[in-house]
């Protein structure tokens, strides 16, 4: 039984300018102990999806099941027993802690809500602080007395308080400096090894996602366009968008950057207010055909470890990609030396 099972999930925000379909029919599972990476460009609905799993965003369709139990329509009271199973850590280590609460109070809060008594909370807070590598005195201090990386550790400790089985990590390292980022990523990995938690790891930095994930979901405009094992995706991306994304990521080494022909994806993410008909990506897609403009492709399997929502991805799982030439193809230019 998957730990988390999301089926055809939809989240819509009514705004003055129209309905925003932030998450538009997303399905996936997370198994115990697994790390699933979720990538996509800004505004494609990653955070919304993450929040919806915790029932923090207004779900308008589909279902979320935790350990087999559908939580989509539970009341707050009914949710109580499920709450500890899924927790969340946030991008902004500053904003995720109440500036007026001591670190101890912040970390102990989920326990207090769950009805723990004072002494038990205190003991658990000390334990959690140790777990994330902070001194026990930290409990009496305030968030602003800590650096960004330390604050992120505090956020992690709070998420761990109730021994969750799944933690939704919404860009937990995006705001951190390179050297501190490594500390936090290592911590997350260590905790996973020790506590066997699963992560839904949201990020836009492909190198981090690649580093931490077992499986990866690629999102585009509210939909998942590709899913699969990390290695497979990096080795053989199916969806043209995934390819473009990988190609756009800066190389780790100048020589690579120079050698690798770079396909630069033209255009920008369309507005979620009036997404294009058919495949949302067709306007930027070098391979777009007539049907892409008409029918919305669904996520379909391309083997045991591969799924993509693309009309033109063929049965063998290979997407033809125009070879780099000096003559730019439609919508794609190649760059490089």
């Amino acid at each position: 039984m998957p730990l988390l099972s999301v089926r055809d999930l939809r989240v819509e925000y009514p705004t003055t300018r129209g309905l925003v379909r932030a998450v538009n029919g997303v399905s996936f599972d997370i198994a115990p102990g697994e790390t699933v990476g979720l990538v996509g460009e800004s505004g494609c609905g990653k955070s919304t999806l993450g929040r919806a799993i915790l029932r923090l965003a207004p779900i308008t369709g589909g279902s979320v099941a935790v350990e087999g139990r559908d939580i989509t329509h539970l009341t707050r009271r009914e949710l109580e027993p499920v709450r500890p199973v899924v927790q969340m850590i946030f991008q902004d280590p500053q904003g995720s802690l109440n500036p007026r609460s001591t670190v101890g109070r912040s970390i102990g809060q989920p326990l207090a809500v769950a009805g723990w008594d004072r002494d038990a909370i205190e003991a658990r807070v000390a334990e959690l602080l140790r777990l994330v590598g902070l001194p026990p005195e930290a409990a009496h201090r305030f968030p602003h007395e800590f650096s960004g990386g330390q604050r992120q550790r505090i956020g992690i400790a709070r998420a761990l308080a109730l021994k969750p089985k799944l933690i939704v990590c919404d860009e937990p390292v995006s705001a951190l400096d390179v050297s501190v980022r490594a500390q936090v990523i290592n911590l997350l990995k260590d905790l996973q090894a020790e506590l066997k938690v699963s992560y839904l790891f949201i990020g836009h930095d492909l190198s981090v996602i690649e580093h931490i994930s077992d499986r990866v979901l690629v999102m585009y405009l509210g939909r998942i366009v590709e899913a699969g094992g990390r290695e497979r995706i990096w080795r053989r991306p199916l969806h043209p968008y995934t390819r473009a994304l990988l190609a756009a990521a800066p190389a780790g080494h100048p020589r690579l950057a120079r050698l690798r022909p770079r396909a630069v994806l033209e255009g920008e993410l369309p507005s979620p207010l009036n997404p294009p008909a058919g495949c949302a990506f067709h306007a930027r897609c070098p391979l777009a055909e007539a049907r892409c403009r008409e029918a919305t492709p669904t996520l379909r399997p391309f083997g045991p470890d591969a799924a993509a929502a693309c009309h033109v991805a063929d049965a063998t799982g290979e997407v033809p990609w125009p070879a780099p030439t000096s003559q730019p193809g439609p919508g794609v230019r190649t760059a490089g030396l």
Partner: protein
Amino acid sequence: MPRSQRLAAALRRFARHKGALFGALVVALVVVAAFAAPLAFPRDPLRIVGPAELWPFEDPRFPLGTDSVGRDIAALIAYGSRATLVIGLSASLAATLIGVTVGSVAGYYGGRVDEAAMRLTELFQTIPSLIFVLTIVSILGPRIENIVIAVSAVSWTPVARLTRAEFLTLRDRDFVQACRAMGMGDARIIATEVLPNALPPVIVLSSLIVAGAILFESAVSFLGLGDPNLASWGRLIGEGRQLIRSSWYVCALPGAAIMVTVLALNLLGDGLNDALNPRLRDR
């Protein structure tokens, strides 16, 4: 310990502000005057005690002179500080309570609740405030509690707006999301998580509302709609207005008292803003 350190830091920031210190001093002085008035002037301040229109320092018994019927201006001003403080503080308190309630509910829940609350706020903002105050006071009668009611009725809207705005930015902050994620109830989130963070600017605004309420009261009394059994600065100005050719000090003194008090409250507000407002803290 850290809390007291924070307090100390806030106090230090406050004390850095010379104006704020001055403001605090004056406000303290007014409070002292209000409490000490019966000790210094045991008799009814509205009592006629000497010849009319004595200039300040003319007669040592009446250091600030007497008004048009021979009442001791010093006593009137001292007792006037009571009316001023009572009305200012209670109106501000009432306005803050109303405003925070409306604003926090509107800001936290958003949607229709917000819409309704904002329409209500707009409604009260649309009615010209002083005219509304005058109408209420004249309808309910010129009594101190009615003035408080009237002034708070027109003063709560900025508090509601500010609270709402603070709540709007705070409610989507991740720490609030985190509380929701752990299953905390709305009432508790509002009261223990959001409100304490929203409060500092509201407190600053409240101190300004005290100043505003004092100005309202003085205008109402000036126009002769105040409580006649009460010594009030505004009333004194109103009564002194006739004498501006011969004895303009009767107007000038209580007016200066109002001005200094309001000024002090404003400076205090600025100081509080520096001390409490987290946005400015890092600068």
